[in-house]
């Protein structure tokens, strides 16, 4: 490749972390089952200062002896959901925090939340957005899709989701014609053909691409995008370890 120093994806916004840098109480208000392994946890955070779609929070659990565990989770809800946030959490085998949320937590419980965090993957709703999600990587992208709908925005948005089966697709019933679902067990891995029609649209100003999922998915999907002509500096990636 021609090595240059211009590849770095420019930041979208510089978040103010003054409010974000403190933990505050969040009360579990409800749990919604999404798939066999994913549930959405709705929290009341009365002094929530709002967020941008694509941002995440840190959740901290504290045991009686003061021991803590904390993990990052993407926000699934929109900025318009005042005083509440929703996190869709995949249950990780042996997962200390996700395991607690899935098996022990019940409405009325209190955890602590720090955020919103991460301005890099945020979508303020200004540019045409091409969203590629693998598995639970769809969560921050769902916040973007919901935000666009809620605000009645006409900014072009396309969502391509790669899941093993239809049953492992969260947010059933919420997707519209902007969304393409690729079920890898039957249709095979995401390939250039799945991206072709969205990339051919060429909206004014070009697509800002957002890729979220496991590292394997993120590597594969981002390479497909670049090979199809999407500029490297217009690809934002969020990888799950």
């Amino acid at each position, binding site marked *: *490749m021609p*090595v*240059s*120093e*211009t*590849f*770095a*994806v420019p*930041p979208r916004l*510089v*978040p103010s*972390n*003054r409010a*974000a*840098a403190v933990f505050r*109480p969040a009360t579990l208000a409800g749990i919604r089952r999404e798939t066999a392994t994913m549930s959405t946890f709705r929290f009341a955070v009365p002094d929530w200062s709002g967020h941008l779609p694509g941002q995440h929070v840190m959740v901290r*659990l*504290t*045991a*009686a*002896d*003061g*021991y*803590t*565990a*904390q*993990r*990052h989770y993407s926000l699934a809800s929109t900025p318009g959901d005042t005083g509440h946030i929703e996190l869709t959490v995949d249950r990780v085998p042996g997962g*200390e925090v996700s395991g*607690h949320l899935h098996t*022990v*937590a019940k409405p009325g*419980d*209190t*955890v*602590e939340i*720090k955020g919103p*965090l*991460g*301005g*890099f*993957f945020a979508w303020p709703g200004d540019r045409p957005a091409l969203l590629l999600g693998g598995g639970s990587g769809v969560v921050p992208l769902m916040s973007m899709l919901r935000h666009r709908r809620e605000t009645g925005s006409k900014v072009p948005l396309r969502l391509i989701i790669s899941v093993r089966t239809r049953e492992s697709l969260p947010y059933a019933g919420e997707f519209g014609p902007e969304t393409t679902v690729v079920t890898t067990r039957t249709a095979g891995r995401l390939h250039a053909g799945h991206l072709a029609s969205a990339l051919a649209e060429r909206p004014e100003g070009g697509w800002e691409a957002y890729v979220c999922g496991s*590292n394997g998915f993120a*590597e594969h999907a*981002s*390479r497909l*995008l*670049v090979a199809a002509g999407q500029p*490297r500096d217009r*690809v*934002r*990636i*969020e*990888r*799950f*370890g």
Partner: protein
Amino acid sequence: MIRRVGWLAVIVTRGFRSRGADRDPRLPPGQYDAGQAWPVLSAEVTPELTATDWTLRIDGLVTTPRTWTWDEAHALPRSEYRGDIHCVTGWSRFGTWFAGVDLDEFLTTASPLPEATHVLARSHTGYTTNLPLAELRSGRAWIAWEADGLPLTPEHGGPARLLVPGRYFWKSAKWITGLRLLDHDEPGFWEHNGYHNEGDPWHEERYAGE
């Protein structure tokens, strides 16, 4: 439930069970042991950078600005780091084994001027991150091209990355191409994007404002 630990009010999560007794003293606060897993975290598309394309330049406030090719860098004395690494997203990995060259080898040749206090490291992708010069000297930083006995993969920063195990790993710039020595501190990519300027895991310096 709000419980007092000393004079601090702590919110206890009902039903959350302590693993405190099992907690490894090698874990900085707020981190968990990733075991053998080595998660990949970078916000950009992985560059297709070969050893032939790779160069390392040291410039700025130095007596002798210099660029090393892959072969020139490999002709320097080999040095290893065996120890722990810590990512700001929460995972730590114990006993990781890196090989490459101690950064002092490069710095000594370039010869920093007395007024140099900080360094801005940059990647072949344009990614940048800042560090105090002192954090990179005296055997505390490496240019690494092997991990656990194998060539560093592109996803982990191959062919070569900066290694600064004393800081969260976003400071260990992947695909390192240069270090510029400065007489002032200049925030890099994540430092502009909400991360803490210093990134010391033992002080849990994750985000700006902490």
